[in-house]
């Protein structure tokens, strides 16, 4: 993938987030504002309509009064005067007798638009639409004492003009609202995404240059982005530690393998210089044995490195301790018998421990193997396990040669061999492996020993499963 393509790939998601944020902001803002605008419009329209209707009914009441008092003549005069003087808004007034005989009609010229013959004249308010459809005539009727019908009406034209003007104003306001919403959305989005953009730039810089010692700047806002930055830095720290650990481990493995490889080479070279067939056979056998040792060593070194760098995969289950101890003790039964060493174990039957059973077996095997190795014939090896507060304490004690004080600090080191151990077969890796595995399980291992008075190795492992850290670095 080319650099620019990758750049776009990284740029696009944040632009998409930005667009989504801005869109949401605008939609919510515009939606609420328009709802308010619409509501005020409806309220205004309703109150204008109500006012008109009140005017119609009150005028109708007034004119029927006048008709009752002074007849058609008086009504006509009143209408004439009021319309002329402009004291009252222009209205439609009609007096009808029988089905269709109009006795009196007063209506503004412009109102010829309305087809008043369609009025039926009964009950409440009637409405007729103008021919052009732009206005309505709202008419109230009243049956007078002499049987004639008085009709008073008003056109909605004025009201419509007013509302139309109001609509124009609202439209302008709405446009302003939308503009404000878009601008606001953009600003909010920018200010929210700015730190994320910075974080991305910083992280991309680190990824591109491969400089894992660089760190992302953490602002002092204490918000989610800061937390993310801090976490990212923490992750980098861990990665750095892990890589250093692995480099270290690799160096060690390379170093530790050089000695046995040199031995192997030496054997082969010596054999080449000799002409004796028997010597050649011997050399080949030695080479095979040596290569077995190198393989065993490589496996053990890898185990130690994995455990130490925290990359060892632990398959943790609740391991019943008594059968496990029994099994390992049985493995060394014959050897112990040959050396006349009594191996006893004292583990309560119900004791279980969260651990990787294969690894734990390896720990025990190494400790028991060690104990038998350094105990003279007729001696004792004891394996004890019991719960001690929040830990399970596992002791492997022997009545052997013990450990010299000057060796004591070094016994956990890889390939360290004390004076006593030089005569014994082994890789010098057993105790390092024991410690690495125990530490990977979140436990500790210790030794108390005196020369000539035996040694006791004590392993303490967490008794409760808190998920032993497998990513410990």
């Amino acid at each position, binding site marked *: 993938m080319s650099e620019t393509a990758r750049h776009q790939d990284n740029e696009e998601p944040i632009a998409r987030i930005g667009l989504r944020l801005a869109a949401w902001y605008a939609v919510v803002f515009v939606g609420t504002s328009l709802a308010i605008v619409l509501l005020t419009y409806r309220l205004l329209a309703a109150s204008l309509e109500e006012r008109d209707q009140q005017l119609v009914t009150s005028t109708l009441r007034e004119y029927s009064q006048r008709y009752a008092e002074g007849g058609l003549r008086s009504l006509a005069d009143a209408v004439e005067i009021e319309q002329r003087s402009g004291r009252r808004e222009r209205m439609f007034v009609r007096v009808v007798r029988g089905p269709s005989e109009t006795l009196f009609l007063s209506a503004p010229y412009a109102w010829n638009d309305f087809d008043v013959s369609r009025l039926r004249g009964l009950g409440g308010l009637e409405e007729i639409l103008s021919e052009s459809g732009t206005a309505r005539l709202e008419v109230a009727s009243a049956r007078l004492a002499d049987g004639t019908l008085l009709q008073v009406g008003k056109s909605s034209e004025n009201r419509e003009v007013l509302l139309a003007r109001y609509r124009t104003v609202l439209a302008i306001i709405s446009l302003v609202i939308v503009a404000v919403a878009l601008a606001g959305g953009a600003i909010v989005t920018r200010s929210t995404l700015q730190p994320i953009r910075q974080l991305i730039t910083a992280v991309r810089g680190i990824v591109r240059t491969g400089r894992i010692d660089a760190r992302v700047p953490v602002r002092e806002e204490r918000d989610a982005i800061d937390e993310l930055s801090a976490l990212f830095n923490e992750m980098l720290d861990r990665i750095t530690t892990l890589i250093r650990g692995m480099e270290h481990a690799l160096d060690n493995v390379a170093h530790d393998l050089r000695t046995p490889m040199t031995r192997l080479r030496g054997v082969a070279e010596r054999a080449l210089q000799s002409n004796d067939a028997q010597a050649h056979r011997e050399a080949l*056998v*030695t080479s095979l*044995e040596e*290569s077995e040792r190198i393989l065993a060593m490589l496996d053990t070194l890898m185990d130690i490195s994995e455990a130490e760098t925290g990359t060892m995969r632990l398959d943790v289950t609740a391991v019943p301790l008594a059968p496990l101890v029994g099994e390992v003790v049985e*493995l*060394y039964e*014959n*050897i112990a018998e040959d050396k006349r060493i009594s191996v006893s174990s004292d583990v309560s039957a119900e004791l279980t421990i969260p651990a990787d059973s294969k690894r734990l077996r*390896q720990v025990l095997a190494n400790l028991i*193997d060690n104990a038998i190795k350094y105990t003279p014939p007729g001696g004792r090896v004891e394996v004890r396990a019991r719960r001690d507060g929040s830990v399970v304490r596992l002791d492997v004690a022997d009545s052997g040669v013990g450990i010299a004080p000057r060796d004591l600090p070094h016994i956990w080191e890889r390939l360290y061999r004390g004076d006593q151990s030089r005569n014994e077969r082994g890789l010098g890796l057993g105790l390092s492996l024991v410690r690495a595995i125990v530490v990977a399980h979140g436990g500790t291992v210790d030794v108390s020993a005196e020369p000539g008075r035996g040694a006791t190795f004590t392993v303490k492992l967490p008794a409760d499963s808190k998920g032993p850290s497998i990513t410990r670095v």
Partner: protein
Amino acid sequence: MVEDDATIADFVSKGLAEAGHAVDVASDGERGVELALKGDYDAAIVDVMLPRLDGLTLIDRLRARGVQTPVLILSARRTVDDRVKGLQAGGDDYLTKPFAFAELLARLQALIRRSTGQTEPTRLSLGNLSLDLLSRRAERDGKPIDLRPREYGLLEYLLRNQGRVLTKTMILSHVWGYNFDPGTNVVDVLVSRLREKIDRDFEPKLLHTVRGVGYVLKAS
């Protein structure tokens, strides 16, 4: 055998030829598929890391074409990945490099035995040494031999593989189920105890040490 390392391919095919097997060698995955589709083989040995087509894909292809030849997988990885485990569940086997030739031969022959469906014997014997698998009793020259459980396990394993060299690692993992080096040589000790019981008072000696490699049970 599909293996790109010429030296390994050479020593394995020579060894197998000596053991009475005919071997064809392919040096990459594609050629491996061709060979396996053409011939009717008793078993295949397939390296995982191969040029052009990796070993596991090769096996998938063969299985997809209905080739049921049992496969012994060779891997240079110390930890066995899940796909290989899956294949193992399907009847195949795997071996990690470096391996002892004796172990490769033993596993290969076990694979062939399994796939040809040989019936399980109830009694194993070599010369005048015999082991009854039902009553779990051993005897030599008509005299009963008293065996402890691990000794019995070792003798059964040796008898089933008579004539073949078994390495210490094989014995350790077969008799105890351990796959790590327990330091002191528990295998040597067990072997010498068994030898004491089955060979000391009898002739000919059956349990031999092959120096640098392991042990073999055979008449001569």
